[in-house]
C-alpha cells in the first residue's frame, strides 16, 4: 500500500502545471519594467518549476530535460550578459551601466533605449538566479555528490 516515490495524482497535475509555471516566470521577467517583479522574482519562479519536477518525478527525469552542464553554463552566462552591457556603456564613453548612452548603436530614442537596457540587465539577473537556485538545490539533495540522489 505504501509507495514512497511515485504518486499518480501529483505526477499528472504537475505535468500540466510545469509549462504554465515556466510561462509565468518568463512573463514576470519580461514585464519587469511595467508591473511588479523583475529578474530576481522571475528567476526564483523559474527555479521553482525545476524543483517541482524533482519533487513530482525524480532527479534523473529532471536531468534529462535540463542537464547539469547546461545549468553551470547558465550561471556564467547571466553574469556575462550583465557585465557585457555595462562594459559597452564604458566603451561608448559613459559610466558603468548608464545605458542611456546605448542610443548611439541602437536604432531607437534614448527613453526607449533605457527600457531596453533594463530588460537586458533583468534577463541576465534572472538567468543567474535561476541557475544558482537549481544548483544549490541539487547540491543539497545529493549531499554534494551529484549522483543519483534521494529526495
Amino acid at each position, binding site marked *: 500500500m505504501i509507495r514512497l516515490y511515485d504518486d499518480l495524482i501529483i505526477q499528472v497535475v504537475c505535468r500540466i502545471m510545469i509549462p504554465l509555471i515556466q510561462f509565468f516566470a518568463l512573463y514576470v521577467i519580461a514585464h519587469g519594467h511595467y*508591473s511588479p517583479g523583475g529578474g530576481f522574482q522571475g528567476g526564483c519562479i523559474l527555479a521553482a518549476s525545476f524543483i517541482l519536477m524533482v519533487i513530482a518525478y525524480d532527479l534523473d527525469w529532471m536531468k534529462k530535460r535540463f542537464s547539469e552542464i547546461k545549468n553551470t553554463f547558465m550561471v556564467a552566462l547571466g553574469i556575462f550578459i550583465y557585465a557585457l552591457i555595462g562594459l559597452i556603456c564604458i566603451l561608448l564613453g559613459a559610466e558603468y551601466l548608464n545605458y542611456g548612452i546605448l542610443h548611439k548603436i541602437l536604432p531607437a530614442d534614448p527613453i526607449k533605449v533605457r527600457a531596453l537596457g533594463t530588460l537586458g540587465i533583468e534577463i541576465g539577473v534572472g538567468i543567474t538566479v535561476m541557475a544558482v537556485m537549481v544548483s544549490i538545490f541539487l547540491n543539497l539533495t545529493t549531499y554534494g555528490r551529484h549522483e543519483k540522489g*534521494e529526495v
Partner: protein
Amino acid sequence: METFFILTIVFLGLMVILCLYRAVFGPTVMDRIVAVGVIGTKTTIILVLLGIYYKRIEMFVDISLAYALLNFITTLAAAKFFRVRRSIFPGVKFLKDRRQTNDSA
C-alpha cells in the same frame, strides 16, 4: 460598496489569526503544514481584494498568482519531506535516523 470589500479583508485577517493558533500550537507537524496551506489560500484572496482597495487590480493579480504558485509548491515539498521522515509525533525526534547513526558510529 468598497467598504464591504474592506470588511471582507478584515474578516479574512481575523480568520488568518485563528489559523495561526493551529500553526503555532498544533500537536503534530502535519497539522502545521495544513494550517500554513490554508493561510496561503486566504492570502491569495486578500491580495486580490487589496488590489480593489488601491485601484491597481492588474498589478495585484500578478502578485497574487505568483503567491498561489509558490504556495502550491511549498505544500508539496513539505509533504514530501515529512513523508520520508518516519516519526512526526512530538517527543519522538527522528528515532530511526538516530539509531542508524549510533550503529555506524
